[in-house]
C-alpha cells in the first residue's frame, strides 16, 4: 500500500467517524487538539488501524507523537507494515 493510499483511507475514516463539517482536514491538522473530541476517539482509531492495515498497535505506540496528525499516523502505519 502506497503512503498516499494510507493517508486517504485515514482521511476517510476521520471525516466519517468524527465529522467536522466546517473545516478541512489536512494531513498535518493536529488531531489531538483540533479534531479528536475525546479519548474514545483514540480507542476507535487504534482499532481501525489494526483492522484496516493489519498491524498490531503496541499500547506504548498510542502516544501524542504518533497520533498527532494523518501524516504521523501514516508514517507509523508504514513503519509497522515494513516490520
Amino acid at each position, binding site marked *: 500500500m502506497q503512503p498516499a493510499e494510507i493517508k486517504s483511507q485515514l482521511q476517510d475514516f476521520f471525516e466519517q467517524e468524527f465529522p467536522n*463539517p*466546517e473545516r478541512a482536514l489536512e494531513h498535518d491538522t493536529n488531531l489531538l487538539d483540533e479534531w479528536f473530541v475525546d*479519548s474514545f476517539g*483514540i*480507542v476507535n482509531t487504534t482499532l*481501525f488501524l489494526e483492522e484496516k492495515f493489519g498491524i498490531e498497535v503496541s*499500547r*506504548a505506540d498510542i*502516544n501524542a507523537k504518533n497520533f498527532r496528525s494523518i501524516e504521523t499516523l501514516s508514517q507509523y502505519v508504514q513503519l509497522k507494515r515494513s516490520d
Partner: protein
Amino acid sequence: MQKLAIEYLQKTKDRFPEKTALIDEGQGITFSELWKSSLALAYWINTEFQITNQPISVNLLKSIDAVIALLGIQLSGNIYVPLNIETPGKEKVLAVLGSDLVLEHVAGEFRLGGKVFANIHDADMENSVLEKLSARKPDDPLYIIFTSGTTGTPKGVTISNASVIDYIDWAIKTYSVTEAEIIGSQAPLFFDNSVLDLYLTFARGCTLHLLSRDVLRFPAEFGTYISTHRINFIFFVPSLLGNLVALKIFKDYDLSCLKKILFAGEAMPLNTLKLLKSGFPSALLSNLYGPTETTVDAIYWIFGEDIEKLEEVPLGNPCANHRVLFLDEQEKQVTVEDEIAEICIAGPGVALGYWKDAETTRTAFIASPESEKQDEVIYKTGDLGYRSSKDGLIYMTGRKDNQFKHYGYRIEAGEIENALNQFEFILQSCVLYDCEKKRIQAFYTADKLASPPPFRNLLSGILPQYMIPHSFHRLEKFPVTPNGKIDREALRKTTMRPNNATR
C-alpha cells in the same frame, strides 16, 4: 459529633502532618502544608471581604491550588463553586449565583474580586479562622455544583456539610478505606465524583494523585503511571474503563496494584464489566449511582464472583441511611416489583435544593408520599427503573425526559436544541444521543441555506465542548407525532439503524 466537612482535614493533619496528601504533575503537598495554605487563604478572604455563607466560584484547572481554593473557601465559612474553566457560559452561572466573586490563580497568585492574595502573618490566624467557623452548622451549604438545565439556565445543586459527611462516612466503611489508599483521581472538580476522591483523602490520610489529561487519554501513560505510583483505588466514569479494557491495557502493564475499582456517572455496559472482571480478577468492583442532587451516590453494588452470570448490570441497593422509592406519573408510590417507575431518593444525601431557584427546586424536590414521612423531602431523579423480583436489586431502564449522559456529563438535549434554534436559518432542531457509538447527533431543518454552516465554530462560543454535536444532519422535514411535536422515537428509528454502522 462532626459538624463540618473541613474537620476531616483538621484531624488528619495532626495525625499525618508530614504525609503527602496530593500529587499533581510530580509536585506534592503534605497534609500540614495543605492545612496551612488553606488557612492562609481563608484568613485573607475573611480580612478582605467580611462575607459569610456566600458562594465563591473557583475558576481553576484541577490542581493543588484548586484544592487549596476549595478548602480555603470552606474554612472562611463560605460556599465553593467549582467552575469548568474550559467552557463558555460562566456568566450564566454567575448570574444564577448572584455573585461575581470568582477565585482565580493568575501569575502564581490567587486573585479574588480584583484583589491579589497576600499571606498575612498573624500568630492568631488559626484561632481567628476557627472562631468564625464555629458558628457554621451542619446544614449550611458546603458547595454548589452546576448542571445543565433544559432551558439553558444552569441549575446550582446546593449540598450541605452534613450530606458530604454522611456520604464519606458511608464510603469509608463500605470500601474499608484506610491511609494505605493511593487514589488516582479522574473526575474534574466541577463533576461531583471528585468529592469522593478528595474527602476520602482528607478523612483517612490517603494520598491523592491528580491524573493528567494525557495519563487518562493514552493507555501506555496510564499503565505506566498506575504501576509506577502503585495506585490502588480509582473512581472513574465507565467510558474510560471501557477504553482501557478495549485496549486490553492490563495485558501490557502490571496493574495488579489496582485493588478497588469504583465507577459511576453513566451506565456500565455489561460487556465492559465482564472484561474488567477478567482483567482484574481480584479487585473489588463496585457500581455506584446518584445524581449530583443526592450527594454523589445514593445506590451502590459490589460485584461478587457471579459477574459471568449477570444478564444486566444492576445499580444495586440504597447506600446506608437512604431509601429508594418508585413513583408513577401521578407521584403515587409503586411498590410492585419489576414495575418500571421513576427512581426517587430519600435520605441525608438529598441536596438543599437549587441555588436561588425555588420553582425548579419545588418540581424536583417533593414531600415524600409515604404516609408517616410527609415532612421528609425526596428527590425525583427523572431516571426510570425498577426493583427486580429475581434478585431484589434496583435496575435502571432509561430517562423520563431527553437528558443523556456523555462521558459522565449530564446533558439536556433541549439545551443543545435551544442553542441551535438561536440561529435564524434554523427552522427546527432535534438532538439525539447514540449510546453505542457515544455520538451526539443534531438534526435540523433550515431555511435559505445553500451549504452547511460552520456549526462547531458557531456553537463553540455558546456550549461547552462536550455538548457540541459530533454530526449535523439537515432534514427536509421531521417526523411528527399526532399532536404535531417532533417524533423523537421515529427519528431515532430512521436515523440509527444498526446497519448504518460505519465500521
